[in-house]
């Protein structure tokens, strides 16, 4: 189980890094979403992987750590809001600048304007 879990997290991270390194905003946003999935899975595993354990001391023999579950919940909420903002920003950038290239090649001409 650990190996499968590790491979899943690793694959997600590798794909997301590949996507984030692209030069267009859409793949980057998709990559960041995938990275946050990978991070959430990883955070979940920091309490060790336990099957059929209740997060309460004394009821079951293997005890699931409740704290990472709470952390993941927080991280999901924050990550969702941030991704939504990034998507809106990317859409507006696409609309106003007319391209979704992250780096504009001739922005040096515009220096000094706000």
């Amino acid at each position: 189980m650990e190996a499968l879990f590790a491979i899943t997290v690793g694959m997600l991270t590798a794909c997301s890094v590949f996507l984030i390194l692209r030069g267009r905003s859409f793949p980057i946003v998709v990559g960041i979403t995938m990275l946050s999935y990978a991070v959430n899975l990883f955070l979940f595993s920091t309490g060790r992987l336990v099957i059929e354990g209740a997060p309460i001391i004394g009821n079951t023999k293997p005890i699931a750590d409740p704290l990472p579950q709470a952390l993941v919940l927080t991280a999901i909420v924050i990550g969702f809001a941030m991704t939504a903002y990034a998507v809106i920003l990317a859409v507006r950038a696409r609309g106003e600048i007319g391209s979704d290239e992250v780096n504009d090649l001739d922005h040096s001409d515009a220096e000094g304007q706000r």
Partner: protein
Amino acid sequence: MWQQHLVIAPILIPLLAALLQLLPWGENPQRYRRLIGIVACILTISAAVTLLLQVHQYGMQVYAVGSWQAPFGIVLAVDRLATVMVLLSALLSLPILAYACYGEDNLGSHFHALFQFLLLGINGAFFTGDLFNLFVFFEVLLIASYALLMHGGGKLKLRACLHYVLLNLAGSALFLIALGVLYGTTGTLNMADMSGKIAALTGDEAALARAGGMLLLVVFGLKAALLPLYFWLPQAYTMTTGTVAAMFAIMTKVGVYSILRVFTLVFGETAGAASLLGYEWLWWLGLATLLIGAVGVLGSRDMRMVISYLVVISVGTMLTTLSIANERAVSAVMYYLIHSTFVTAALFLVVDVMAMQRGKTASRIVSGRKLAQHSVVAIMFFAAAITIIGMPPLSGFVGKLHILEAARVGDQANWLWPVVLGSTLVIMVALARAGSKMFWHTLEGKAGETRSANGQLVAVTVLLSAAVLLTVFAQPVSAFTDAIANDLYQPQRYIYQVLGGSTL
């Protein structure tokens, strides 16, 4: 009775103010929102001052939120360092908000609420004693800063903001990975508790914890704008409006504060296999940041860009000095941090005044028309320039003197002295060139007619007077920063206070 809850006031006041400002306030809402904002800033300042006096007199205070004791609940750990940082952000926010009330807050919606949310995040990040809570407050201040960066709108801001948002999203993911690794090895997120647990690690576990610590350094380096991670800063600070850039003067300091806190408490000298983690990296990268910043200052054609690179230089100076890792160095860093926050903010506002009065040439370093209030603005500019360069008599000189003093012996002096003094020379050349071009080589003909409101000039003067006060009261201030440094190098006192002696 209420005094024990004073600790959380600098977090609650901005929160309540922001919520009030979001209410619909009828026909002319901006008037009420301004009033609420200013009142909230004054209240935060008075709470921070009271806290500072209490902490200085009676020692550190720990506030267990919801009465859940550490290490199980989240605590606010308020020592001298945290209070001084909160006071700094509060003192910075009032003149900047006053400046913004002269029209700049009308450029976009909800400026005031976002400003208070930003303060909430900053103050929370300074006060919290829990690493995951630090992450949450980082996100609060980041999401407010994303929106503030876009204040006023426009294509160039949009692109700079997109870079900033995407980089920080990746940074947040790294932060979570680091937290996961540290939690997985130590089983705690409370900084004081983690400090003890890290010291007991050996073998593979210790190696994992070191990896987690280095990841944290990368994240904080991104916030602080350390060399390979600073590329977002010049664009973002140059493109945004003056007030937002001025308020962002404290943002890189949040990164520096986090490094200072985590890498003395958790990965300090007592951390066993993970002790003094990353200090070597900080030293070399800090020096390189200083050099790159100096190159940037010389190469910029826009005054805002020059100041952005000055921020990079100040970060390099602070992190390099910090990595010397002794009390004198930390004390010097704290003095320099206070000084550079005020002066950078003042410079951003001065340049904003200049850009407004110059009209079409804005803040580009070219000859333009004479300003309507030429001499006043020129005096402000040169006072700020002298301070940031580090020439006597103002606080920059005292700050740099402390830093050079801290590295007086050994190999460190051979590297730090030439780089710091060389960058000082470069800043002097660049600012002298910019100042003479913009104030002395003005075009013939009549002066511009746009005048700045007196209140705006007063706000800038208040920020600049901090430089004067820091010079006049250099002795008490550095005595206080010595006490901060002493606290940081006695982490067992912090740990004892937070854990309430339960593990001893």
